[in-house]
């Protein structure tokens, strides 16, 4: 029986604000998982703290709502102990780029086969709208008494520097496009990062749905000129593949940088990079533990039928033997 989107829904009452971008992301994740024909128990959704942190409770799959900033190490622990799991981590921009910044960087370095979705709305919603690490310098959203005194992080740049091997950006109100990104991110073997631009209808009165949609700049016929646009797959190829020359790779990186720099009048969404030349963490583990995939940590029988330890310590004792 094919898996339906409904299979990934729970009866838990959703308490996000009406119009919140989180709904678009939640629906996209559920649709992507269903379209991939995954069964709910094969999936574990991890989250950080904040509005987006509640996401797992609305998804009928294993759901782990963790600590502020710590979603990635929790998720990595789950994935490495049971590599059969499909692991999706979600978190806000404050969670991932602020308190969790160190984990974000180091997760890229490891290239564990999982997906991290960053809910980026520029504000700390649940604590009533303070500036998040991605809010641009000088911007004054609704509840800020003064304009933002810090420059905003560019999550795409940071993910590139950290070593994520799949980097994409979506928009919370373009669900069809976002579903496609999430599916590709999950299918990618390695650490995939999807930044999702998401209005906060309650606290971010600058980067609103209307702003992203260009409702403030209608042409003579009354048609809005949206700021968000999809990167053209013909003119921008994100693939870094084995056998490419250093020159080719450098060219790709330069394209990435100029594309990721765009903001304001034109904001690109789509896949920015897909690097197939870096080994994933599980491949690296296999070099140490050749049977890791057949007998991963979660599946190892650690005792025999009499509940005695499975480990035969004789060779270790022999190393320490003095007589």
């Amino acid at each position, binding site marked *: 029986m094919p898996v339906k989107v409904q299979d990934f829904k*729970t009866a*838990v009452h959703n308490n996000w604000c009406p119009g919140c971008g989180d709904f678009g992301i939640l629906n996209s994740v559920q649709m992507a998982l269903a379209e991939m024909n995954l*069964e*709910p*128990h094969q999936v*574990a959704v991890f989250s950080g*703290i904040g509005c987006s942190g*509640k996401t*797992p*409770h609305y998804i*009928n799959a*294993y*759901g*782990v*709502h*963790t*600590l502020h900033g*710590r979603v*990635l*190490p*929790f998720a*990595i*622990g*789950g994935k*490495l*102990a*049971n590599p*059969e*799991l499909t692991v999706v981590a979600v978190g806000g921009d404050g969670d991932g780029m602020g308190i969790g910044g*160190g*984990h974000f*960087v*180091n997760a890229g370095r490891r290239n564990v086969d999982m997906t991290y979705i960053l809910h980026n709305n520029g504000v700390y919603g649940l604590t009533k709208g303070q500036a998040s690490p991605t809010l641009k310098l000088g911007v004054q959203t609704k509840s800020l008494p003064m304009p933002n005194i810090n420059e905003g992080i560019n999550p795409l740049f940071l993910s590139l520097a950290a070593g994520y091997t799949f980097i994409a950006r979506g928009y919370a109100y373009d669900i069809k496009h976002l579903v496609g990104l999430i599916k590709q991110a999950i299918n990618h073997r390695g650490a995939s990062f999807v930044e999702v631009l998401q209005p906060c209808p309650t606290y971010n009165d600058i980067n609103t749905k209307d702003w992203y949609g260009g409702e403030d700049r209608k042409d003579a016929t009354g048609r809005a000129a949206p700021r968000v646009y999809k990167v053209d797959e013909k003119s921008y190829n994100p693939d870094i593949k084995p056998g490419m020359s250093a020159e080719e790779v450098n060219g790709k990186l330069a394209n990435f940088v100029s594309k990721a720099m765009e903001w304001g009048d034109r904001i690109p969404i789509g896949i920015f990079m897909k690097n197939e030349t870096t080994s994933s963490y599980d491949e690296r583990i296999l070099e*140490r*533990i050749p*049977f*890791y995939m057949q*007998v991963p*940590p*979660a599946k*190892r*029988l*650690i*005792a*025999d*039928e*009499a509940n*005695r*330890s*499975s*480990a*035969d*310590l004789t*060779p*270790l*004792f022999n190393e*320490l*033997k*003095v*007589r």
Partner: protein
Amino acid sequence: MSQRTNSLAWLLGGAQYSGVESSVTLFARACAAGGLHIYSQREYYSNIMGEHSYFQVRVDEKPIHSIRSTADLIVSADAETVFIHGRNVNPNGGIIYDSKLVDTPISKVPMMEHQAREEILHYLKSKGLGETVGDMIKDAEKRGVRLYPIPYDELLQKMASGQMIQLAQGRRIANAMAVAASLAVLNYDIKKLEEALTEIFQGKKKIIDLNMKAVEITYDYVRKTFKNDFLVQLVPIATKETRLYVGGNQAVALGKIAAGCTVQTYYPISPATDESTYLEAHGVFPHTREAQDVSGAEKGSILVIQTEDEIAAITMATGATLTGARAATSTSGPGFSLMVEALGWAGINEVPVVVQLYQRGSPSTGLPTRHEQGDLRFVLHAGHGEFPRIVLASGDLEECFYDAMRIFNYAERYQTPAIHLLDKALASSSQTLAPFRSEMVKIDRGALLGEREVMAKSSNGGFKRFEYTDSGVSERTGLGTKGGIFWNTGDEHDEYGHIIEDPTVRVQMMEKRAKKLELAAKEIPLSEKMNIFGDPKAETVILSWGSTKGAILDAMEVLKAEGVNVCFVQVRLIQPLPSEELRQAVINAKRRLCIENNFSGQFAGWVREHTGLTMDHLIVKYNGRPMSMDEIVNAVKQSVKGKAPKRIVLTDGE
């Protein structure tokens, strides 16, 4: 002067990274090869190269468990060792030193801390002596200490005659020479040293030959030059026992492998790191025949992950534990400080994650490579709010192994984070022991369900991960199990794991979690909670926990020989504390002493809180050094005589 046989406190010191450790291993192995028991304790600076490092090694016919305040024989690889330890040689003991160092003044000892330098200068001046190694040695000689100057350079040259010896090689050979000199003074069989060298340099014939030559030349030199009448003689004894020479970090690591810990995360920190590096180096090991029959897997493994910080270490281990794997992290006080928030998450989500905590001198960075038992109160209360946790403290290397196995059983059976409390003294001690027997501890996974059991449970409605039960323990399963979907959250939650703020549910969940600790207190056998040594009816009872055990046990033998009868209650299960059993064990004693390596007597306070019992004397130490047997003998004697203050502060150690 009367000689004794096979009872020795030997000390070797030198600059860090100069091969002090390899000399000690060689010495220990040579002694162990002759059927003798070894206990060694390492002291070192937070430094890569050059600072003073030393080992005290005790050799005996029977197992020993502690250091002494003074040494019988000191071997110095450098001038600093003579200055630092020169006054701590027993009268009639000996000093082996490099004869070319005698004219070295203390001002030319580069790394010595200025307090130590000034204090030693003051001492030498008060004795009317100069400022050189020779002066320090003269002072020792006056106290009856035998001197063994060895011209290492000349001996090396004699040996080299014709062949080039590279500097690094020469330094390594010098280590073997220092050991050879010791064994000559101790009149021990040089063949045992040869056996040890062969073991250490397995298959490397050239290196073995080179070392053996240096060893023979040195041994002969000492035998020809000095009288063979040293205080202690070592004689091999016949035994058929198989023995390991194991360090504390290794004992814990072996216990974790035996326990079936399959994921270990860590962030480097003294004195915990060696456990993780040992595990990483031994990450793949065979399964027993019986286990192979069940699983079909010939080998097992432990995945070791070095994380970006301690927060990632505990959260990653927690994530791994959620899959049903046994996972742990290993750290010291500063690292544990960072783990505290995540400990609370594991507490409210009833995750059986295990933390090995090696205490060191604190607070803050404190004394990074020195000893203390200062984190007891911290681990008991770590985290905001109230949640149960198990705290188990090991007292010696055998307990390190078996407790490392048991702590996973406790964690899983009671579904709560569990802290295995260790310390620097355990981490840096090594001992000869019979091989551990993992079959002594049966693996108990508690209410962990597999797929078939979960499917049966959840067929009508979902799986209630946090189902209310009489015991407080709910059934659990691993992430990815069909039919077992559950949710975790740091928020208060309902039986499925969804966020809830309902006051009734809150009360039920708080009580459910708390009940598990009562269950643990009821179920865990007394033999795993505490040990009672000596005469249970003795007038004097010593209460202690952790690594003080060895020094107390050794002290008890001396005290007994001197007619002082003592009962020693060593508590291992700190939380839940076996309050009633503890009360019964100490209530009738005339005199209660609590011994611990911290400032405030944290355990004494914990006992008072749970039993209402107060201590007559608190014997504490917080100079960053473990307790010696002698200190405890003296402190107990003082209190028995009724002449001791309520608080006795021990200060031995260099």
